[in-house]
């Protein structure tokens, strides 16, 4: 049944209901049956939630309850409770959220639910893909605000389309979760907006930061994720039933008898045991079993065991029968017996009652029913006693409809919707249906009966007429009636009713069926039973039952499993990576290089990607490398350019200069619930004086890039052991060059060390120092000054080595002790220290021009010369400054420094 038709009737012409599905909504533990429609308008989608009558066929049957717009804020995730393993996939419970609104829904298993969810998924990923280019509008939903009957929740959700401050009414939530929401929203806006602004990069539109999707993170919609595996298999098996089943006939004896409250004195074998062969099944129905008030009020009667025994005794003597089930509602009773050898193939037996008597509920009228599965066929048997009186045929029609509507059998899987009568392969309906003969008086009727002209009489039968008009028992068949009316006789005789009322004889007691492969062998009444005012009726049917061919079942089953495995494998997130190896050539200190890798989602599902950490490593990549963005979301078919940026700074340079580390890394691009891809990064680093140690540099007489890497490595080792054959320089020529340059040209430079240099000039200065290509340094004074600071910052061992740090801090207030410490520094460190202090003192002499003072210079240099091996706090910073300031006040012993600088 396609319910989107009903929904469509409530929509405007521009709106289209893509697909609809019935579901159960859970709100505060209360279950409600709802109809969901996915409605499409221009580029936008929304889920319309309807309340509905049982079988929504037209627009009148549904009432709009709520609307959830599918924007990027929308999410639908599978709910798995702890005691229900999602992998076992019993049912589909999903939680739908839009902003602060949250709703839990249970979708019945089957392809419809699957399809619905994947359509919703598609709509959602479209919305995500367009965001933020296309801002969601949803103004077409505004008109529904007035229409909606239960506007309670709708009112809240519609304004929230424009303002985010919606208060949720549908479901209670704790304060905590509300707080989480806020945080989540902050997370949504914050990083994303700032990123968009700062990068101003168009390509970001396709990827979204992971945060907004957190709730969806491990639960991206995709068919297999819905744990529907078992249900998928069930569906497929059902679809292919013909392949592995064949039909085999079984005989069903159906009997109905209105016993008018009499006792079971007579033997029932003339009725039940009348067939030549023992039937496979007996389905025997009684009405008016007990007319007492007690039975009516308490639904308890001694007649039940009495008649049950009578039936048992009356069964065909040539077979052994087992009672499968007995069900009774006041006087309406149904018994099912089966040949003992078939019992093992009967399963899923359920019994239900529906009263249609007084107040539409009481059990004096109504029906009892049994459902069961025999081999692969589902069979439902109904015994009903419909409303009495000749003129009440419409009431009887109504009873029939009520019974069909209200009779519901729970399924074994509680997640599945209850089964109704018509959902069965075969329906057998018997009982005192109470339809009478119309338009003929008693004499006329009796006359026709006497002539055995049942055909003429049958044309006046109300049931026949109603069935011809298709007002009742649509789709049912009844065999030809070749017996005289079974009502009403004087009890104990075959005499028509002689009471005052003198009822017109009628075929009250009837047996009908619905379904394929049913053949009738007999349909008759049993005149010899005389204790009631009705005669019993029986009908022998041969019903084709679907039998499973184990071998082809197994084959089909395996085929389906293979098919689903494949489906599942196809739905594993997967992408293509434009290149898996990147080489960065001639990487230099403080000069970034960028290359781009393009990742394209070629799979069938949206995916979430992220670079993940390797075992035993603190981050997903080495510190000189970054990937931007390092995580994100890719809709189907979308792609993202990821920038791989290599940047060597003061902390990574030393290892690379000394050759202890290489530019080598492998990134793992991980897809949530999917594959991993490796991207290998290599590079050649050009060694630089920046990031080399003072002692090594002292040993290098030529520019560092003229040396081969092994020599540098050797020298690094040597300088550590202090064993060198050639005489080292006093201070590294690179420092000398920078300091001399500044001394010569920048003494009077205003704001020296205060104003930043230019990145490009720094690169020229660096190259000049590393290659010795020029005799004088290029660039402005500020750039050279900054280069000097960067040089000091990049030293692996600061000018005051780490091992001296603690002592310096401790004795910072004592000038002579400070000097003592400095005099104990390793030679080249001491030289550099003195050289720099002398230079700074010189700068101070020109403070009128350069506007520098002790405080400024001490705070610039102290932190570079005297670096903490750990993190420096404010107190230590102050102490370091104090330490260094001792060396900036001129003292007699400093006289010779000027010479040193000029020499």
């Amino acid at each position, binding site marked *: 049944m396609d319910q989107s038709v009903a929904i469509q009737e409530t929509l405007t012409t521009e709106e289209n209901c893509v697909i609809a599905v019935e579901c159960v909504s859970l709100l505060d533990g209360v279950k409600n049956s709802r109809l969901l429609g996915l409605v499409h308008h221009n580029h936008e989608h929304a889920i319309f939630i309807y309340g509905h009558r049982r079988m929504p066929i037209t627009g009148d049957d549904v009432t709009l309850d709520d609307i959830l717009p599918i924007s990027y804020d929308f999410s639908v995730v599978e709910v798995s409770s702890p005691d229900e393993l999602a*992998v076992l996939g019993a049912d589909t419970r999903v939680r739908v959220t839009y902003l602060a609104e949250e709703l839990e829904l249970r979708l019945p298993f089957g392809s419809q639910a699957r399809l619905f969810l994947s359509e919703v998924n598609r709509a959602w990923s479209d919305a995500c893909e367009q965001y933020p280019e296309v801002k969601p509008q949803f103004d077409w939903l505004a008109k529904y605000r007035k229409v909606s009957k239960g506007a309670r929740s709708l009112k809240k959700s519609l304004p929230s389309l424009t303002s985010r401050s919606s208060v949720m009414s549908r479901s209670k939530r704790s304060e905590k979760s509300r707080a989480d929401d806020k945080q989540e929203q902050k997370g949504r806006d914050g990083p994303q907006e700032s990123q968009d602004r700062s990068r101003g990069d168009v390509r970001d539109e396709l990827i979204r930061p992971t945060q907004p999707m957190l709730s969806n993170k*491990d639960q991206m919609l995709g068919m297999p994720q819905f744990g529907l595996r*078992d249900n998928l298999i069930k569906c497929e098996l059902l679809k292919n039933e013909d392949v592995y089943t064949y039909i085999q006939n079984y005989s069903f004896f159906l009997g109905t008898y209105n016993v008018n409250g009499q006792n079971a004195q007579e033997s029932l074998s003339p009725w039940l045991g009348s067939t030549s062969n023992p039937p496979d099944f007996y389905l025997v129905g009684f009405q008016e079993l007990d007319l007492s008030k007690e039975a009516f009020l308490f639904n308890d009667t001694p007649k039940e065991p009495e008649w049950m025994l009578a039936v048992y005794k009356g069964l065909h003597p040539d077979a052994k029968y087992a009672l499968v089930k007995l069900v009774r509602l006041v006087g309406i009773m149904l018994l099912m017996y089966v040949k003992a050898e078939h019992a093992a193939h009967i399963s899923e037996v359920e019994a239900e009652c529906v009263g249609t008597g007084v107040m539409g509920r009481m059990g004096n009228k109504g029906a009892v029913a049994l459902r069961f599965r025999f081999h692969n066929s589902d069979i439902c048997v109904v015994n009903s006693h419909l409303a009495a009186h000749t003129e009440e045929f419409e009431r009887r029609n109504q009873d029939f409809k009520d019974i069909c509507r209200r009779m519901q059998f729970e399924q074994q899987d509680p997640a599945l919707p209850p089964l109704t009568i018509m959902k069965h392969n075969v329906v057998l309906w018997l009982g005192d249906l109470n339809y009478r003969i119309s338009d003929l008086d008693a004499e006329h009727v009796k006359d026709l009966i006497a002539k055995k002209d049942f055909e003429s009489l049958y044309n006046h039968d109300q049931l026949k007429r109603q069935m011809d008009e298709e007002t009742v028992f649509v789709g049912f068949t009844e065999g030809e009636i070749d017996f005289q009316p079974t009502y009403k006789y004087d009890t104990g005789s075959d005499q028509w009713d002689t009471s005052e009322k003198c009822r017109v004889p009628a075929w009250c007691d009837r047996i009908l069926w619905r379904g394929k492969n049913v053949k009738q062998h007999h349909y008759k009444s049993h005149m010899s039973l005389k204790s009631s005012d009705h005669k019993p009726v029986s009908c022998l049917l041969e019903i084709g039952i679907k039998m499973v061919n184990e071998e082809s079942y197994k084959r089909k089953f395996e085929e389906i499993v*293979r098919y689903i495995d*494949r489906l599942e*494998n196809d739905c594993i997130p997967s992408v293509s990576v434009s290149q898996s190896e990147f080489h960065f050539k001639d990487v230099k200190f403080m000069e970034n290089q960028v290359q781009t890798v393009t990742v394209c989602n070629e799979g069938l599902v949206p995916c979430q990607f992220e670079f*993940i950490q*390797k075992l035993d490593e603190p981050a997903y990549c080495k510190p000189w490398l970054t990937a931007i963005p390092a995580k994100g979301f890719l809709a189907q078919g979308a792609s993202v350019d990821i920038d791989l940026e290599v940047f060597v700074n003061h902390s990574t340079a030393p290892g690379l200069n000394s050759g202890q580390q290489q530019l080598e890394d492998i990134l793992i691009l991980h897809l949530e619930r999917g594959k991993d891809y490796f991207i290998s990064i290599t590079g050649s680093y050009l060694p630089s004086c920046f990031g080399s140690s003072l002692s090594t540099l002292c040993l290098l007489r030529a520019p560092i890039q003229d040396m081969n890497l092994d020599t540098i490595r050797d020298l690094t080792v040597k300088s550590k052991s202090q064993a060198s054959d050639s005489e080292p320089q006093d201070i590294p020529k690179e420092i000398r060059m920078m300091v001399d340059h500044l001394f010569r040209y920048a003494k009077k430079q205003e704001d020296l060390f205060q104003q930043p240099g230019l990145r490009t000039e720094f690169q020229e200065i660096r190259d000049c120092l590393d290659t010795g290509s020029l005799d004088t340094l290029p660039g402005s004074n500020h750039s050279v000054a900054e280069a000097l600071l960067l040089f000091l910052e990049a030293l692996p061992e600061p000018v005051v080595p780490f091992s001296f740090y603690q002592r310096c801090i401790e004795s910072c207030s004592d000038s002579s002790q400070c000097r003592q410490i400095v005099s104990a520094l390793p030679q080249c460190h001491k030289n550099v220290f003195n050289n720099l202090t002398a230079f700074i003192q010189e700068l101070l002499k020109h403070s009128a021009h350069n506007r520098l003072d002790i405080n400024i210079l001490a705070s610039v240099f102290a932190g570079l010369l005297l670096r903490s091996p750990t993190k420096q706090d404010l107190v230590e910073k102050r102490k370091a400054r104090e330490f260094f300031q001792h060396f900036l006040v001129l003292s007699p012993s400093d006289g010779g420094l000027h010479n040193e600088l000029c020499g």
Partner: protein
Amino acid sequence: MAKQYDVLFRLLLLGDSGVGKTCLLCRFTDNEFHPSHISTIGVDFKMKTLEIDGIKVRIQIWDTAGQERYQTITKQYYRRAQGIFLVYDITSERSFQHIMKWASDVDEYAPEKVQKILVGNKSDEEQKRQVATEQGNKLAKAYGMDFFETSAFTNQNITESFTRLAELVLQANKKDLDLLGGSINDEFSLADLEEQEGLCNAGDNTRKSCWC
């Protein structure tokens, strides 16, 4: 209707680049063979459902990069495996010798209870054979492993070797399964899944529903 499967576990394919790991997996899950070698650069997986002793077993088979430079990284995947295929190429003596290294890595990085089998692939290439069947047998015996010569090309021994390893894993975990009461092994697959989550976001122990 009964549940369609009861257990879920993970098998891993290891071996030098080019021995045919990806082809073995493709043959087993899709019954396809690709003659060209597109080296796996990363870690890939596929699902397959088997029935072993009446138990529905869903296996997740991981195909790893065989290239040497990725070996330090692929090691981190070992600890998630319950079963491992050590694959060499019978036309490559070198790939056979490297089995020793692969095996010792497995000892170091894989869980103790992990089940292993030795696979000599490309058995169809008899004329180019460099490793005698007997050599494979001997090595397998030394390691106490089962041994199969397979061909992803002709489909020889493919189902057999995968089923065998699955059986071994099932047996090795039989005690846990039985403890949980025969047919229902929810805990088993659950534990497994948790572990899976754990690897991808280390330290994140919140259980998420599994998609598979």
